[in-house]
């Protein structure tokens, strides 16, 4: 064979031959390499395989990533992402093109899981899954607590011990799940869905003890986040230690730094419940006592008033009756108060007594009181004063003025209303004027 320049080639390759040789040379020289670059022309084929180009300022390299490897990438791959890929060079003979067959993709500068975490957090945040308006309030006194965790982990021990310490009688239902590894997220989702579907579960604790980001990964998966969000029962997320934040923590109604803390959030100490109730009760009793004392002193101060001097004997009787009733009532109340302080274990007995004794006493007192108050009411000129009439006093308020002749020009008089009084200087006295003329004037 002769060619133009008169040089005879030693060997002429077919396209297939040279392609195969290049393939052999390339593939044996670069069986495993790491390449960094920017992802572009990202394309996901419906078969599940991925195609993208790695590029830098000057060059481009085609890549393919097969479905089974794609599944292992936790974060979302897209154009513009700076990545480091591990793989081998391969020549695709039908097209004579070389490409990188990618086995592993890592984001540049941070771990793959870290990037996946950030991406999902951003996405769910945008969707509103972390919004405080969706956070459910924890019940004050749950009767039944659901726990989604491993039955053999440290978390379940911490949770049960803490709950038992705080509140002796509590119904706990454990939904056992794998908390790490293949299938863990699916089991956690099942657990949340199942416990959330039970009518009598008041609150759910979901979590596990500490571990690496890989160990905690199930709690960073989107399906777990969505299960938490869709659960109708309030969920406390307790994953790892204080410093570990997972997606589950952001979606849950409450985040607890550790499983023990979650248990503490579930229920107040029984003792502190009792103390709260006891304090309220004491306040009620002392308020009631104070209230009745006020009433009594009001009545007595009226009774001591000169106006009632004519009825003095009758009032003395009234006063005595009031005192008797009062003493009885107070004795009972005080006894009950002491009991509250001294003997917490017999609270039920104490309640029974309060209910029966104090109530009866107070009802009795109330009945008597109403009778007395009615009597007092009938006797009282104050009743009239309440309507706006006044009384007039002379001699520095010592004597009640009943007739005009008791009033002299330039003398000081005290005029009192039901509430309030004023002192005045008499400017003029008209002994003959009738009240009628003034009243008719006012009507006009």
């Amino acid at each position, binding site marked *: 064979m002769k060619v133009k320049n008169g040089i005879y080639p030693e060997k002429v390759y077919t396209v297939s031959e040279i392609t195969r040789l290049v393939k052999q040379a390339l593939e044996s020289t670069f069986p495993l390499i790491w390449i960094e670059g920017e992802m572009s022309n990202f394309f996901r084929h419906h078969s599940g395989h991925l195609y993208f180009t790695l590029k830098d300022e000057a060059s481009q390299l085609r890549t393919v990533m097969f479905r089974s490897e794609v599944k292992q990438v936790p974060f979302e791959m897209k154009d513009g992402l700076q990545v480091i890929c591990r793989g081998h060079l391969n020549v695709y003979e039908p097209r004579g093109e070389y490409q990188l067959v990618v086995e592993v993709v890592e984001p540049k500068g941070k771990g793959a899981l870290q990037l996946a975490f950030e991406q999902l957090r951003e996405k769910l945040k945008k969707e509103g899954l972390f919004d405080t308006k969706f956070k459910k309030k924890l*019940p004050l006194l*749950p009767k039944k607590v659901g726990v989604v965790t491993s*039955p053999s982990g440290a978390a379940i021990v911490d949770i049960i011990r803490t709950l038992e310490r705080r509140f002796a009688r509590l119904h*706990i239902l454990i*939904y056992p799940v794998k908390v790490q590894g293949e299938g863990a997220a699916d089991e956690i989702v099942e657990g949340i869905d199942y416990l959330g579907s039970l009518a009598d579960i008041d609150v759910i604790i979901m979590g596990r003890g500490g571990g690496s980001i890989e160990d905690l990964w199930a709690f960073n998966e989107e399906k777990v986040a969505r299960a938490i969000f869709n659960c109708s029962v309030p969920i406390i997320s307790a994953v790892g230690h204080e410093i570990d934040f997972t997606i589950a923590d952001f979606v849950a109604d409450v985040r607890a730094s550790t499983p023990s803390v979650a248990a503490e959030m579930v229920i107040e100490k029984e003792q502190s419940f009792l103390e709260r109730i006891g304090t*309220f009760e004491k306040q*009620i009793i002392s308020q009631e006592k104070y209230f009745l004392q006020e009433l009594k002193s009001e009545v007595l101060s009226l009774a001591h008033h000169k106006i009632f001097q004519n009825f003095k004997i009758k009032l003395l009787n009234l006063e005595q009756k009031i005192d008797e009733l009062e003493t009885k009532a107070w004795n009972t109340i005080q006894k009950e108060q002491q009991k509250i302080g001294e003997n917490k274990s017999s609270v039920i007995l104490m309640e029974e007594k309060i*209910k029966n004794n104090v109530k009866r006493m107070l009802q009795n007192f109330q009945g008597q009181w109403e009778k007395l108050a009615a009597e007092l009411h009938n006797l009282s000129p104050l009743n009239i004063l309440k309507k706006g009439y006044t009384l007039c006093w002379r001699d520095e308020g010592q004597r009640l003025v009943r007739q005009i002749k008791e009033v002299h020009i330039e003398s000081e008089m005290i005029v009192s209303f039901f509430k309030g009084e004023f002192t005045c200087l008499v400017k003029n006295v008209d002994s003959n004027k009738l009240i009628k003329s003034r009243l008719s004037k006012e009507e006009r």
Partner: protein
Amino acid sequence: MRDLSFEKALAELEKIVEKLEGGDLSLNESLALFEKGVKLARYLREELQKAEKKVEILLKDEKGETRKELFELPQEEESSASEKDEDDLPF
């Protein structure tokens, strides 16, 4: 749900205390509040007593049917203590 009524009752009791402290009540009102408050306190204590202690675990059989079993904590403290003892041995 009982827990809601517990919360309501506690809030109501607190309100009664406030009302009584606020004053401006007739004797009748005051006594009625007092009685109600004492009843509420009693109810709250009863509610606290009502719950029963139980720790259960859900188990699934091959058919996917769930059943509950009583769950007991592993005697973790003792076993870890004995392990520790062994670790302390010099050989």
